Every structure is written in structure tokens, then in C-alpha cells.
């Protein structure tokens, strides 16, 4: 929704914007758990890092020395080994146990400096992508220039409460700008929307055509480009988490600031088993099934 409003409002008003330097309060660091794993047959990574000052753009400091494991409800244990820089990895190749069955529950357990952190996720169903389409469109306006627009066609399952993260890769590169973050609750924007069991609604389908780097127009595909789309099933909690991430990170400035929501910490599903005031933990654990499809734009 936000992406739509931003495109709409952004252009009309001349705004006056300056980068400024301000002193933010010094804060201790918190533990960050980035644990999004899936059923793809490739190495799965859980990273443990530390938060850093807001204006510090160095690579986050990895946290070594933790024991990280995931157990499923069928009795399998997946051990994630410290690889480097706080990246704990488990490789599904050449092992018997797999992350694959729908409905299975997964428990994450991290032990670090005598403290235990846990989180849980279920592996939910994911619809297949029926097709990817490129449609040539005339110039609509300044933001929708002439060119090929990509969209994916997939149908949400019947029954309310399926949540998805739709990831797009252009020429093999994951589109990871905050404005590319594309999530769906059933086939629509949110739980209260009641769009269930149908093709994903138009703004979600179309969002696989990214904005340009200046975020002021859509950048259509050109001949020779490839598009790869993945649907990751996510838990409802993960959907709300990503929705909060959208609110906090889709900041384009300018006149959109009038519509901006106040800054707020995003939620976390990581539970500190012995909570205290000093060791704060944030981050998210989610297990996904993934479906994907690719297509190259030919003449």
C-alpha cells in the first residue's frame, strides 16, 4: 500500500531536504538473531550479530561461540556450525534429515554465554507460480514509463491465514531495497482484507518490477533481462514483523514524510529464557517453503 502512496505523492511537491548530522544517544549493543531458513537444497544460515550505532555503516560484528540448533517436531535436530563472522551454517547436502514437510514445527535454540534464547516457527504451504509475464506498456505518466512490466501469476490457497514473502531477482540479483519488500496476507495486503483463494491482487503481482535507484519511477525490464520470482511461505508473526519493517524502512523523504509513520521498534519472536535488563535480544526466526520460477525477456 505504502509503495502506491509514495509513488503518487512523491512527485508533485517540491520539497527541501538536507542531510544533517545529529548526536544520537549512545546505547549498549543488543544481540541480533537473523534466522530465516527454508526448504531449498542449499546451505542454510543463521547469523548472530550485534546492533551498532545508527550511523555506523561497518559490517555488523559477528557473535562467535554460540551453540545454535533447530529441532523439528519429528525429532530431527539440525546443528548450525559457526562458519565465520557470526554465520552459523547447516548444509542439507549429504544428510538424511531435511527441512521439508508442511505443518512441521521447528524450534530454534541458541546458547550463548550461559544464556538460552529460543524461538519457534511452523513450515507452511506455498502455492506454485503458474507463470511470469512481461507486458509492454505505453508510458502512463512520469512514474510509469514505457517498457516491459513483469508480473507473476499464482493463486493463494483457499482458507484464510496463508502469509507469503514474494522475492524477486533481476538478472540474478535479489531486489533488496526496502521498497522491494513485497508481502501478502492470503492474496491481499492484510488479514482484514478478506482476499482469499484468488490470484494475488494487482499491486502485489506488479511489485516484481522494481523502482529505479532514485525511487521516483518504475524501471521497466528491457530485452535480455531475466526475472526470477520466489514465494516464501512465512508465519503470520513473520508477516506482521515484515509489515513493521516496511513501515520503518520505506522512507523516501520529501512530501511522503507527511504520510510517514513514527519510528518504532519492530517486533521479535526470539525469547530470552532468563530475561534481564542488560542483555537485550532482537531478531526473527522463520522457516519457509519456497516455490520459484524464472523467465528471460526475449524479443
Amino acid at each position, binding site marked *: 500500500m505504502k509503495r502506491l502512496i509514495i509513488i503518487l505523492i512523491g512527485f508533485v511537491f517540491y520539497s527541501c531536504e538536507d542531510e544533517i548530522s545529529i548526536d*544520537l544517544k549512545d546505547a549498549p549493543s543488543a544481540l541480533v538473531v537473523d534466522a530465516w531458513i527454508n526448504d531449498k537444497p542449499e546451505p542454510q544460515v543463521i547469523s548472530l550479530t550485534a546492533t551498532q550505532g545508527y550511523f555506523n*555503516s561497518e559490517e555488523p560484528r559477528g557473535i562467535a561461540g554460540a551453540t545454535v540448533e533447530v529441532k523439528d517436531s519429528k525429532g530431527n535436530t539440525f546443528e548450525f556450525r559457526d562458519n565465520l563472522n557470526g554465520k552459523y551454517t547447516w548444509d542439507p547436502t549429504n544428510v538424511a534429515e531435511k527441512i521439508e514437510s508442511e505443518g512441521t514445527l521447528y524450534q530454534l535454540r541458541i546458547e550463548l554465554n550461559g544464556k538460552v534464547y529460543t524461538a519457534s516457527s511452523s513450515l507452511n504451504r506455498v502455492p506454485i507460480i503458474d507463470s511470469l509475464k512481461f507486458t509492454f506498456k505505453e508510458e502512463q505518466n512520469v512514474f510509469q514509463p514505457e517498457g516491459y512490466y513483469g508480473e507473476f501469476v499464482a493463486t493463494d490457497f483457499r482458507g484464510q491465514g496463508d502469509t507469503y514473502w514474494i522475492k524477486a531477482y533481476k538478472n540474478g540479483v535479489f531486489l*533488496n531495497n526496502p521498497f522491494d519488500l513485497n508481502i501478502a496476507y492470503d492474496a491481499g495486503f492484510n488479514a482484514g482484507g478478506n482476499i482469499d483463494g484468488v490470484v494475488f491482487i494487482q499491486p502485489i503481482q506488479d511489485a516484481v518490477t522494481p523502482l529505479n535507484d532514485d525511487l521516483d519511477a518504475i524501471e521497466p525490464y528491457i530485452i535480455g533481462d531475466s526475472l526470477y520470482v520466489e514465494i516464501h511461505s512465512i508465519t503470520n508473526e513473520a508477516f506482521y514483523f515484515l509489515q513493521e519493517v516496511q513501515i520503518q524502512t520505506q522512507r523516501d*523523504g520529501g512530501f511522503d514524510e507527511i504520510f510517514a509513520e513514527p519510528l518504532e521498534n519492530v517486533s521479535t519472536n526470539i525469547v530470552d529464557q532468563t530475561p534481564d535488563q542488560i542483555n537485550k535480544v532482537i531478531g526473527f526466526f522463520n522457516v519457509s517453503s519456497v516455490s520459484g520460477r524464472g523467465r528471460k525477456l526475449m524479443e
Partner: protein
Amino acid sequence: MDSGRQLIFIFLLSIFSVSILSAQEKVTLSGYIKNEADGEALIGATVFIEELGTGTAANIYGFYSITLPSGTYTIQYRYVSFSTQVKTIELIENQRLDVELVTESKQLDEIVVTSEALDANVSDVEMSVEKLDIKTIEKIPAFLGEVDVLKSIQLLPGVSSVGEGSSGFNVRGGSVGQNLVLLDDAPVYNSSHLFGFFSVFNPDAVKDIKLIKGGIPANYGGRLSSILDVRMKEGNSKERSISGGIGTVFSRLAVQGPLKKDKSSFFVAGRRSYIDILAKPFTNDATLFFYDLTTKVNYDFNDNNKLYLSGYFGRDVFRFDERQGFDWGNVTGTLRWNHLFNDRLFSNFAFIVSSFDYGFSFGENDLDKFDWNSRIVTYTFKPYFNYFLNTNNELLIGGEATYYKFRPAEAVGVSDGQVSDISLDNKFALESAVYIDNTQKLSDKITLRYGLRFSSFQYMGPGNVYEFQATSPGERKELISANKVNGRESIKTYYNLEPRASLRYKVGNGSVKASYTRTAQYIHLVSNTAAPTPIDLWTPSTNNVEPQLGDQYALGYFRNFGGGNSFETSIEGYYRDNKKQVEYVRGADIFINEYLEGDLISGDGRAYGVEFSIKKNAGNLNGWISYTLGRSELKTDGINNNEWYPTRYDQTHNLKLFGEYQLTKRTSLSANFTYITGAPITAPTSRFTIQGVTIPYDYFNQRNNLRIPATHRLDIGLKWLPGKPGKERRVDDYFVFSVYNIYGNKNPFSIFFSQDQGRVVMGDQVNTLANQFSIIGAPVPAISYNFVF
């Protein structure tokens, strides 16, 4: 409930005992006070009986009534910038006397107020009230030279906004949704054009505005913070006149005149912005404009019956091509019937319709599109009785019933020809109130005004009833059940007793005033954006969302100085205590969300402050200084570690200066200066990365913990009447040259935190920055031409 009925009964009894005691052989003088030039009723014109040293004032329809022992009296009819009319009357029996006052000479009215002392601000029981007439509003230098009602009231003590580009206004630390904005009795649900740069009130059509910040009389209710009562012009009942203006942003035209001389008149005023037309060659199909139409017709059947029909229609349109865009607007209609039962009992019956809606359209063709709109529609009936009991008591009795229809979302999405109707069900409610209010002069020194309002709200079917279960504080509530209600049965009913009281006590040449107001608010303006916008959503109290309740205490000292009371000064302190203010949970989704109620939570609010005001009304140089020292805070479970935090519109210092200097008979200079403490915002301390997205993080989990820099601005204006001295022009016209923000200060609207634009390769780190955003960062010059003929 029972105790409520009892209270009302006791209250009525006490008022009737007053009336019995004073029911002696007396006669009543009554009538309407009007402007001689155009027949407009003069709201608040005073009637002063020299022999008794007492008097009364005309009500909002210009009607006055005063009951006296029979005898011969010298009576002064007075109104600001009008010549006082003195009549000697032998009052033996009840007498009707309609009076028409004459404006002081045209050239003089800019400088001179009346020769008589007018000290209403000291002698009235009313406090915390700001009045501006359109003449004053026209003198204030305005953004792009366009005179504006809402911008003008923001120069008064206790009134502010969060900045250029925000809709609405804030009063005494209250939110925008806590103001009741009335246009000829009709509620206006969004008072702004173009994101708050202009208001919906066409200055050509406005006669008078009154802002009640505290000591709200019992005849008003439904919002916690303030009442802005805007009255439209009635139309010249003497002769046809055309007025208008050509400005930088829009043009205005108004036509008024008699339909039947002295009996019936009409008024039609319209405006349209034309930036879009000028910009057309550069913007292809993209447009941005607004227009509005304000109209009124009135008819005097006879001495005792008058009918008024007024309406407003306005729309903002913001399109980026033929199919895609965003628009919003208000429609209001008011039918009023004034009826005099006798010379002491005045009544008015109003039937009102009001609606506000906004809509979005996206998608390039009918097979792929997304259309969405949202609307609130209300129907109101308001009977009002004004009973002039005797010289010492003036009674208001009345009621109000409003039927609400909320349409949160009518939305249709089409993907590859597959249509999904994702509209939400309508919500219905009935709000009603009865009230009684008495203004009583106890002695020369003491006047009391006291009243009671009994209000109720029924959230009713048909609709869905949801039950939620609270999870942890500040987080989305969990849905446990949903039931459909088919009939018009009540789902949840709320009642409230709202006592009101004000006191004025004369001390020497000044007066001390105190007031207490309790108000209940049953509909809520839900917004999760930094500034109020047109897409904020009005939503009713339900079984899950409780009404807001507010108490306000105010105390003030009022004193005038100088010959002819040329200096008016006042100091007022206020304290507001609010319960159940509506807030939202983390990540709340207020658009097209069937379970919105699960995303709303409530907290406590408090606001306090002191307002200082000095006004100079006479001489070549006049104007005012107003300064407010204030605080506005909220406390909500689950937010800011459950501690008090400042609201986005908390402004410690708020200083406004306005001055006007008459250079020559044909030119005057004006200026206003504003200084406001920067708004508080939430800033992060840290950042972290999840799945390649860098997210801001506040380790201390605080809300509104950083102040943006203070804003200040100077605007100037020059008004020039063309022509030669002593030569009468056929047209009354003038030019206004103005510069807004003359020293080009980049006043910050907000500071926001974001990552650098552009994409980074997965695994690389992004830069995160703080940006300061100003809506207007340069001087904005403008010129406009205005005429009346």
C-alpha cells in the same frame, strides 16, 4: 442512569425557581440587530440600557431580548466598527424593535473602533474564546497571499499545527480529531484543502468565526478539545453585489443579493485553484487542484419565522494520469428554521447532512486495477431554544441527534480480469444529547454560567461484532469471535453526564474568570502518520473502543487599558485531563482492515499551559502578541515503557505576533512573526540487519525522544487601494502584495532516518542517514487583487 435523571431534575427545578421568583410585572424589548448595508445579522451586538447600567447581547442569529420593569429608557445598540445607535423608548408593553446599525465611514473603519468603550472580553462570563471577524483575517499576511481562516486562528494563543502541510489544527494540546469544526451548524470532518495549505472555508463566504478552547457551553459537545464555529454570510438583502479575487493559487468569485428585498437573499461563492492549468504543459496528464462552492439562501416569512438553507461542496483532486489518482472532499447541507414563540423565547431547528470521503484509483486498465474509497456520512437534527428569562437569566435548552454511517472501505481489486471485492461492512451509530444551560447575573460583580449535557451513543447494527483478547500491552489484540448483527439493534451503548460551569468575578477594572468543562467524544479520528492527512479515518466507539472523556479546568485574569479600551490583555491557565484517548498498536494497519478495532488501544492524556495575550485595537498601529507556554502528553500501556511521553504537537513555546500599520489612507503594512518549539520525534540509537534489510532500533524503546529544531518565520504584506484620494471609485478594490517566510528560513517539518537511496549488493552494508525535511525552505512572494462591486 438514575442518578443522572435525578441530577437533571434538580437542575431543572432550580432554574424554574429562579424564574418564579423573578416573574414580576415586566415588559420585554426584543428584535434583530442587522447591518444597514447588507442586512447581515450582527452576532453578539450589544444592547446597553443606560439607566440600569446593564444589557444583553444578540445571539448567533442576531436576535436579542431583554425584560425590564416598564419605564422610559435610553438604549444603546453597539457593535465593533459600527456607529452606536442610541434610542429613547417608553416601554409600557412588550415591544419589538429591529435595529440596523451603520458602518463607520469606509476609510475610517480600518483604524477606528467605536467611540464607546467595548469591554466584552472583561465583562462577559465567556473565557477561553477567540473571535476573529473576516476583516481582521483579511489583514493577516497569508501563504501565497490567500487569506485563510484556519491559518489565522493559529496566530491566537493556544492554537497551533504541526507544520505546513498538515491538515487541521491543535488546540491546547489536543489532537486534530478532538476539534469540532462547524460550518453553519454542520460538522466538517476534514477542514483542509491541499494537505492543510488552505482551509475549506472560503473567506468570501465567512461572516464570523468563534473558537471555544475551554469553558465550552452545554449546547456544544462531541469533541474533547475545542469547538470552531464558523458562520456563513447570509447574502445582501439590500442590493446585488459581486466580489472576488485573483490570486497566485486560485481565483474566487462570489455573488450575493436580494431575492425579495429585505425578505430573502442568496449568496453563492466559489473558488478553484489553477496551478494545474499553468503547469499542464510540463506535467502531461498529472493534475492537482481543488475547488469549492459555498452557498446560502434565506427567507423571512414574517417577523417570527425565518428559514436558512446553506451548503458546502468541495473537492481536492490529485491525479497522475487519466485513470490513477487520489481525491477527497466534504459536502455539507444545513436547513434551519428560526421561530419566535414569543418575544422571549427564540428557537431554531436545524436539519443537517454532512459527509467526507476520499478515494484512490490505481491500475492502467479495467483488467488490472485497484479502486478504493472510504466515507463518513451523518444526519443530524438539532432543536435549540433560547429563553430570555429576565435581565439576569438567559436559558438555552436543546438537543441533538446524529445518525452516523461509516463506510470504512469500498474496495475492488482486479487482477488479470479476476475481480475481488474487498469492501468492508458499514458501521452505524446514533449519538444524541440533551442539554440545559443558564447564564445568570448574580450581581454586578458576579456572573455565572452553568449547564448540564447528557449524551449517549449507540453503536448499532447491522454489522459485525468482534471480540478481541488483549495479548501483551501495545501489541495487536487477538480476535476470538465475530458475530453478525442484522437488525438495527444496539450493540453497545454509552452514556455520559457532562457538567459545565463558568464564573466571572469583577475585580477593579479587570475580571477573574474560571471554568470547568467535561466533554465526551464518541467518534475518533485514527491516524498513524506523522502529520494529520486527508486519509485519517473516522471510526466510532464500539464494544472494543471506548469513548474519550475529558475534563478541563481554566482560570484567567482579563484587564483592559487605555482610552476606549484600546489595549486588551489576558492571562489564562488551563489543565486538561483526558481518559481513553485512542492510540494504535505497533504496526497498526488502518486501511481496509476488517479487524481495525484489534489494532486500537487507549491511553490517558494530559495537557497544561499558560496563555498570554495583548491586543491593541485602536490607532494607526494595531495587532496582538500571543504567547503560550504549554505541555501535551500521553501515557499508554505498552508504549514508551508505560511512561508519559510528549505528543507530536507538544510545543513548549509558541509565540505569535501580528501587527498592522496604516501608512496612508490607502496603504497599510502588516506583518506576522511566529516562533514555535520544534516538534518531538522518535529517533533510533542503533541499527541492525535482517535478511539484508537494515532496520533502525531504539535500545531504550522510547517515543518522541528527540526535538527537531524550533521553527520561526516572518511574513509581511502590503495592502494598497488604488485610486486618488477624494475620488469615489465604482469598484471597491485592493491589491495585496505579500512575502511568506521573508528571510527564507528552512523550517523543519521532520527529521527522518533512512538508508541511502539505491541498491547495494547483497552482503554489502548500506549507509544510514538522518535527513531534515522542510516543506517551505524559501521566501514565497505573492500578489492578489480583490474587488467588490
